[in-house]
């Protein structure tokens, strides 16, 4: 029941949104719809894990062996909560952004939310593929229609990249489907494949799936679409892309790759880990040299996602726990960063770090809130990311799936230092120092912006101090995945 609501509310709300031909009502409507989704998501959290309300199942394509099966497990709960929190936050934070034909913008945003929810809820491979693509289409239109100057090319690159990945994944899904015992797309049948698909086949099947997920995350060297797209998209869409959508890739690996093809995952673990590490260091180094705030955050995101991916392939309980909690944290933190950037850009009309300076004198509240978010981005203790990254690193270090665990940990640890360099550097140059002619005119933030940023800060600190509820929530999923990833059994 709840999963259906989570998909249906934004879907119907979005479709209806196309017909509200008034900017203000459309904005209000979308906020209302997203809040409704948030309430449903919280309701789902309040239910016990075995509650029948958390699952739904209906006939869809009987001849193909695909059913409309959706369900909320621990990982689904966390990601749906993230999606449900992200959208109202985004709507409130970008309340004052102006869009041409705003009703279409908001309607498409809600449709993308429906697609994302579907991805996180689907318990059927074909259904998962359906939503995987559907989440992409509205985002394509959002970025191409309302983005920056080079939006059309940048978005198109993004679309082609992800589309190629998805199609390869489709081949993989069909291949696996044709090898299931009962010709079914259900998750259970896919998880039982481990005994039916030989090791040799898993070796190449792995890449059919992993390329799709790696493009979405993105993992070096498939990341090249990402900085351009983040830069050119309207900020609200960038928040969706980086806050929620990249989690689709991480999620995909955890739910549809690692447990289904354990031998392939184990065999390619070192290769993928190496790619992750190269990507982390590379992205961090590039981030240091960026002058554009959006690009800086984009590259920083590549580094953070790389760490999560690394931890998945380490195959340890603590690492996987870290991934779960960090998926949530990263979403919250990066949306916080985008909100600040959006505020700066809207007020001063520039995102260039070199043109800014001394904002703290003019906007003290903004500065305080930003510093907290930025510290979370560096994973300082007491912030949520500290818990996440600590678990990730300890997981990688304790890994028995690879013999290079120490090397991986040390090199990946470098990226934390690098991230401190570029984040603190950014804060210093944007917020401290002397004001210039441009930043003279800056004003402090308004109430609605204070509220959302404060909410984000509260989340950061609360999870940073007391992460236990989230860890408990995802424990069962983590255990299941780790058992399934054991290729020997």
């Amino acid at each position, binding site marked *: 029941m709840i999963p259906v609501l989570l998909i249906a509310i934004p879907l119907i709300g979005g479709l209806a949104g196309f017909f509200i031909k008034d900017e203000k009502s459309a904005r209000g409507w979308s906020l209302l719809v997203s809040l409704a989704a948030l309430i449903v998501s919280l309701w789902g959290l309040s239910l016990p894990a075995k509650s029948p309300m958390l699952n739904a199942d209906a006939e869809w394509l009987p001849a193909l062996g695909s059913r409309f099966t959706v369900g909320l497990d621990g990982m689904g709960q966390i990601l749906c909560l993230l999606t449900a929190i992200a959208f109202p936050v985004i709507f409130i934070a970008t309340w004052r952004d102006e869009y041409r034909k705003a009703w279409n913008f908001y309607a498409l945003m809600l449709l993308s939310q429906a697609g994302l929810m579907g991805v996180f809820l689907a318990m059927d491979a074909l259904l998962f593929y359906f939503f995987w693509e*559907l989440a992409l289409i509205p985002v394509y239109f959002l970025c*191409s229609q309302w983005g920056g100057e080079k939006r059309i090319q940048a978005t198109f690159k993004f*679309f*082609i990249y992800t589309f190629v990945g998805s199609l390869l994944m489709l081949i993989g899904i069909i291949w696996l489907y044709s090898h299931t015992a009962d010709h079914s797309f259900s998750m259970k049948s896919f998880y039982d494949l481990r005994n039916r698909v030989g090791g040799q086949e898993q070796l190449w099947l792995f890449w059919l799936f992993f390329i799709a997920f790696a493009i979405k995350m993105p993992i070096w060297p498939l990341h090249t679409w990402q900085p351009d797209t983040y830069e050119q998209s309207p900020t609200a869409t960038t928040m969706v892309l980086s806050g929620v959508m990249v989690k689709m890739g991480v999620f995909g690996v955890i739910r549809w790759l690692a447990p289904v093809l354990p031998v392939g995952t184990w065999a390619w673990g070192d290769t993928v880990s190496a790619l992750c590490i190269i990507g982390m260091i590379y992205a961090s180094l590039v981030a240091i040299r960026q002058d554009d705030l959006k690009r800086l955050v984009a590259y920083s995101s590549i580094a953070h996602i790389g760490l999560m991916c690394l931890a998945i392939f380490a195959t340890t309980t603590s690492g996987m726990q870290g991934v779960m909690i960090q998926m949530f944290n990263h979403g919250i933190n990066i949306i916080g960063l985008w909100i600040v950037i959006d505020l700066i850009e809207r007020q001063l009309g520039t995102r260039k770090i070199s043109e800014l300076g001394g904002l703290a004198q003019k906007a003290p509240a903004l500065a305080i809130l930003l510093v907290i978010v930025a510290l979370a981005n560096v994973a300082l203790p007491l912030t949520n990311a500290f818990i996440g990254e600590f678990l990730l690193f300890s997981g990688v270090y304790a890994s028995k799936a690879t013999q290079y665990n120490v090397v991986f940990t040390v090199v990946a640890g470098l990226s934390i230092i690098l991230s401190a360099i570029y984040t603190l550097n950014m804060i210093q140059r944007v917020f401290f120092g002397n004001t210039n002619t441009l930043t003279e005119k800056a004003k402090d933030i308004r109430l609605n912006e204070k509220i959302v940023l404060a909410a984000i800060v509260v989340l950061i600190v609360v999870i940073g101090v007391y992460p236990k509820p989230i860890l408990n929530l995802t424990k069962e999923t983590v255990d299941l995945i780790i058992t399934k990833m054991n290729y020997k059994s």
Partner: protein
Amino acid sequence: MNAIIISAVWGIIMMFSGIVTAKGSTIRNAAIIGLVLLLVCNYLDLIGYHLFPVDTHKMLFFDTFGLLANGIIFASTLIYVLLSGREIENIAQRMPVAECFALIFFVLCGVSLVTTFNTLLMLFLGIEIISIPLYILTGSDKRNLKSNEASLKYFLMGCFSTGVMLLGIAFLYGASPNGSFSIDDLGIGSQKLSALYMAGLLLLLVSMGFKVSAAPFHFWTPDVYDGAPTVFTSFMATIVKAGIFIGFIRLFDETFGDSQPRWQLFVAIITAVTLFIGNITAVFQQSVKRMLAYSSIAQAGFMLLALLSINGLAKEGIILYAAAYSLATIGIFAILIKMKDYTFEGFNGLARHQPLLAATCTIFLLSLAGIPLTAGFFAKYYMLASVIETGHFFWLVVFAVLCAAVSVYYYFRVIQAMYFKDGDAQVLELRPGFKGLLVVVAALIVLLGVFPQVLLDKLYTLVYTW
């Protein structure tokens, strides 16, 4: 049988209706009535009411597959006439409208032969009945040099391929154990295939490849599709192509199904080449009409996957593919006819002036590109799944998928022009009925995209429960 006789008779009625009235709308309405009649009678045939109990001496065989395909083709034609029928009248200063409709019915007669043939002679007859009216329709814009050129080109190339086909049939006749044209007798297993038999098979493959514009026999397609009046391009690229494809599948399934391993590699190569040439060349086109011509080659490449695998999935899939492809392409052509400028730039800013037109066009394009939630996705899904099920030619599946990604490039160029570029797209006058029908077609595509079983299951169960 019903469909063959009625379409032929109605073609003659249409031809003579020109004597009774010169009014275009009357003639068009008569054609619509004829098409509805065809659909109904074909359905009656499907559920066992044969209006004309003719003994065909096993020359024709009416199975569900063929009749179902007929149904799709007649329904597509009905939608086509409803959407673009008026445009046929607009060519009327140069060409009597009654005759155009008569020719369309004759083509349908040929298609229903091709979908239900049981001997190679009937196949040949059907292909010719389809082709000859098409030569005329291609050249129907008499004062237009391009149309004339297209017609002549089509005629010459068509004659050549017909010759090749006849030669192939003759070879097969010679190679068959007891001298027969019947496809039942020609399926002689994969052992002891004489060189004559293989030669005949390959010649048939070539000539059929020519008719469905598979590479490297596709060279006529862009010129003919570009030169023909757009409304007839739409007819040729969808209904006719789908019909011939059904015949193609039927031929290779019934006749050469046993010898599959011997010819599969040839088909695989043709498929790969078709996919490659169709998609890559479409990327470089400046005119949407020409792009659609190449896209039809590319889509033929995808349909050839069904020919390659020939199994249950393939046969179901080709019906779905025919429906999805025809609906979407007819829709795009109907919109294209209404545009003043056929280049990509001509579509610039269409979304601002005609939001409904742009939205439906987007759905058609997404369907051609094979995005989920549209019929095109499941069409492509079935094609890929059918090949994967055979367990061979995995490279071709990957190649097809990469080509599908290329196709996104040129389909999305139209979407980008409509939505993201500023411009002043000029559109001819639109009737509300036309827009309404476009919405219905788009809704059908989405419906098939969510529940493809509606078409496949429901039709099958309807047939079996009666």
